[in-house]
């Protein structure tokens, strides 16, 4: 029995030694991030986890989203001009912007037009030597935001002026330029890597103009950044920024409570009450820029009739579903865009929960003994904590109006693929998180006629000419008031035609230590720390 006693003593001795032996350090902010970045070249990836570790701390864009909003403001471009025909965008670059000086690179010049052109051309031109600097590289966002078909040319007017010419007017273009994939890289750094024969370092040792410089990444464990003292904007408040990669939500919570990190994203919904009760923590929350929906297949009878879809919508008690599944961290959705987005039409009336009326409407439409499938996604997403539970509650509600619903599910990749197959049997639960704060990024991507074609994301296969024309018109004008009116009309048509049962918008929660001040939540779901301070 001696041995266990000895072991216990050593454990306690070691633990206390560790607790008291922490070295003195500069002001450090520790962020318990939810996963490992795929790389550090933001253009090459699509996940928020990667952007949080690359584009947000290390890079800047010509224009950026103003803190806490989806409003676009000048950044590396100190000003810009859009021609009256909406075809040319001229950006005046901020003079004297310095790229990071690091252990692996010392810049000899400031930011100029060559850097901007390099950053875009490598993504759009398959023959550019930096298009495949790592074989198999794909620039998913550049392609899916249709930059390739939008941009006719990019020219250097002078060292500090760049002009983009478009093929046709495209109002969301400016917001696209504020997205992570449009981060500006240093051409000088790229040239240096090319000469050294280490092109792949562009993706592992980033050099940008952002508020933090990259210091080191230990795979799956820690990412370290240091304050950029030469930052062109307001410098960061902390000296060091450390990402402690912690994939499990329960462990992140323990780390936060034990003081091993200052701030964490994505707590488990069930833990939020406990977090709020913890006196050492602050819990910030904000409505997410997202929507969860049930998309009917509007190509298949009887779901091709709007009156049937509306009757089914009336049969479902959405308030009960959101209360049970989002656990207070969400609200019922009536429009396909969230209430925090400009052009949200609050005048739209949602179908009221009324099983009797639903039954009568189904009978009036000549639908009896209806059987249908409900697809429940197998994963948790920011807009959907538990799709299975949602499907079960819908099944129960539909049963009450005589509709027999069967729940099906597939592996996530299969689910995404099969749910886009024409002739799909059943209604699909899915959702969307906005990329750039533009309503077009929801409505066109999810509901336009073009998106109903092969490879799109319109899982209702719903094609309404009038609706699509409104979106097209809105895209062609840069007058926001006019665009708002067009999108408001589009939402009325959407509700009248009911291709979806809109389910909910989730609330994003960010717990942090009381020592943390100045954190601003982004409606786009990104995590940036340049405004954050931490008390000693």
């Amino acid at each position, binding site marked *: 029995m001696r*041995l*266990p006693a000895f*072991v216990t003593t050593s*454990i*306690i001795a*070691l*633990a206390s030694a*560790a*607790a*008291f*032996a*922490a*070295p003195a*350090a500069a002001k*450090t902010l*520790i962020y318990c991030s939810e*996963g490992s970045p*795929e*790389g550090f070249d933001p253009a*090459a990836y*699509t996940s928020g986890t990667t952007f949080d570790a690359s584009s947000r701390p290390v890079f800047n864009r010509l224009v950026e989203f103003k803190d806490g909003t989806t409003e676009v403001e000048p950044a590396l471009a100190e000003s810009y001009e859009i021609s009256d025909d909406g075809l040319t965008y001229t950006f005046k670059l901020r003079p004297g912007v310095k790229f990071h000086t690091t252990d692996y690179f010392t810049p000899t010049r400031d930011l100029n037009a060559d850097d901007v052109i390099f950053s875009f051309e490598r993504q759009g031109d398959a023959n550019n030597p930096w298009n495949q600097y790592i*074989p*198999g*590289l*794909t620039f998913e966002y550049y*392609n*899916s935001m249709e930059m390739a078909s939008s941009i006719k040319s990019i020219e250097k007017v002078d060292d500090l002026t760049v002009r983009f010419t478009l093929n046709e007017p495209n109002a969301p273009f400016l917001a696209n330029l504020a997205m992570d994939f449009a981060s500006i890289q240093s051409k000088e750094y790229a040239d240096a890597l090319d000469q050294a024969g280490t092109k792949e370092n562009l*993706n*592992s040792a980033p050099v940008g103009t952002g508020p933090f410089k990259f210091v*080191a990444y*230990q*795979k*799956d*464990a820690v990412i*370290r950044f240091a304050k950029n003292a030469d930052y062109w904007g307001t410098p960061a408040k902390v000296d060091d920024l*450390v990402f*402690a*990669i*912690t*994939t*499990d939500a*329960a*462990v992140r919570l*323990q*780390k936060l409570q*034990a003081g*091993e990190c200052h701030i964490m994203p994505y707590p488990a919904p069930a833990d939020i009450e406990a977090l709020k009760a913890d006196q050492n923590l602050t819990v910030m929350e904000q409505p997410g820029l997202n929507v969860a929906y049930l998309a009917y297949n509007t190509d298949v009878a009887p779901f091709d009739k709007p009156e049937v879809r509306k009757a089914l919508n009336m049969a479902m008690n959405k308030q009960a579903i959101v209360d049970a599944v989002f656990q207070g961290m969400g609200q019922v959705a009536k429009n396909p865009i969230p209430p925090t987005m400009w052009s949200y039409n609050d005048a739209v009336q949602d179908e009221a929960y009324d099983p009797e009326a639903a039954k009568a409407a189904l009978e009036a439409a000549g639908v009896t003994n209806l059987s249908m499938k409900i697809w429940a996604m197998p994963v948790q997403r920011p807009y959907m904590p538990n799709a299975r539970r949602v499907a079960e509650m819908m099944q129960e509600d539909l049963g009450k109006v005589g509709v027999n619903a069967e729940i099906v599910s597939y*592996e*996530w*990749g*299969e689910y*995404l*693929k099969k749910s*886009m197959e024409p002739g799909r049997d059943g209604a699909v639960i899915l959702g*969307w998180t906005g990329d750039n704060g533009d309503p077009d990024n929801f409505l066109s*991507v999810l509901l336009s006629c073009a998106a109903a074609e*092969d*490879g*799109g*994301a319109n899982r209702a296969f719903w094609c309404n000419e009038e609706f699509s024309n409104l979106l097209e018109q809105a895209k062609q004008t840069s007058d926001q008031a006019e665009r708002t009116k067009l999108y408001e009309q589009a939402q009325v048509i959407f509700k009248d035609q009911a291709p979806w049962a809109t389910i909910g918008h989730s609330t994003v929660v960010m717990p942090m230590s009381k020592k943390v001040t100045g954190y601003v939540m982004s409606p786009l779901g990104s995590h940036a720390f340049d405004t954050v301070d931490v008390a000693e």
Partner: protein
Amino acid sequence: MIRFILGRIAYLVPTLIGITIVAFGFVRVLPGDPVLLMAGERGMSPERYAEVSRQLGFDRSLPEQYLDYVWRLLHGDLGTSLVTKKPVLAEFLALFPATVELALCAILLAALIGVPAGVLAAIKRGSWFDQITMGTALVGYSMPIFWWGLLLIIFFSGMLGWTPVSGRISLLYFFPPVTGFMLIDSLLSGQKGAFASAASHLILPTIVLATIPLAVIARQTRSAMLEVLGEDYVRTARAKGLPPRRVVGMHALRNALIPVVTTIGLQIGVLMAGAILTETIFSWPGIGKWMVESISRRDYPVVQGGLLLIAVIVMVVNLLVDLLYGLINPRIRHR
């Protein structure tokens, strides 16, 4: 002896070929498509899908892809991760020391406690010590690792504050990896308190990972000892009047150790499986966590390469265990 070793190595070849086929086939039989997973909710046009598939080499037939994979393997190229775009071997080598460090500590803990506990339980068969030890071993063996890990974190790190929650060392220490073994690197760094921090971070994951092997080793030792204690030569030794300590230590334990060493060797496979969960709970940057994430992202080259490397390691360890028999028991000699 040399012939025996060469013979065993020759056995490895067909096994390895089998593993390449299984690893290659396994990830492709799983539903899900890495290209579509990349696109997510957004979807992808058929043209774009074809283009990305071509860039990643998925447009060729499966036999072609397999032959290409084997050809590259023969040239020492395990492929490149679809996600991080880094060579699989480089990623493996960067993460492997973390897993080895944890696994070594776990197997040491399991053997150091499991063998003596099993011996004592056998000697005091039927006593309260025997019953408690074997009861605990049964509980340990059936312990769900994920739950057990979280429970320990909540109790020791959350409530008592004795141990750190996760990671390999306090984030306030920062030094470049030299060997990849944090205990050694922290000593080499010369930073005050770094070693203690690294050691304290090892405690909980070691206990969690050691739990199942410890239970297995204790039970195996007990039954092997019981068998040996009933043998004629032990009775003879006792009859000669040898002190009990010598009877147990010299005559019984040495013979009982053969199946125990086999068991410990086989635990390497168990440790690799356990590492997957333990590393995920404790944010331990090793190959277990790496494999889990790669499977969920359908990162084919990483899953294939990782499986192959892990299989090779398990096979080599088992070979070494076979060779160890000769040292423990001179009756067994490999000819």
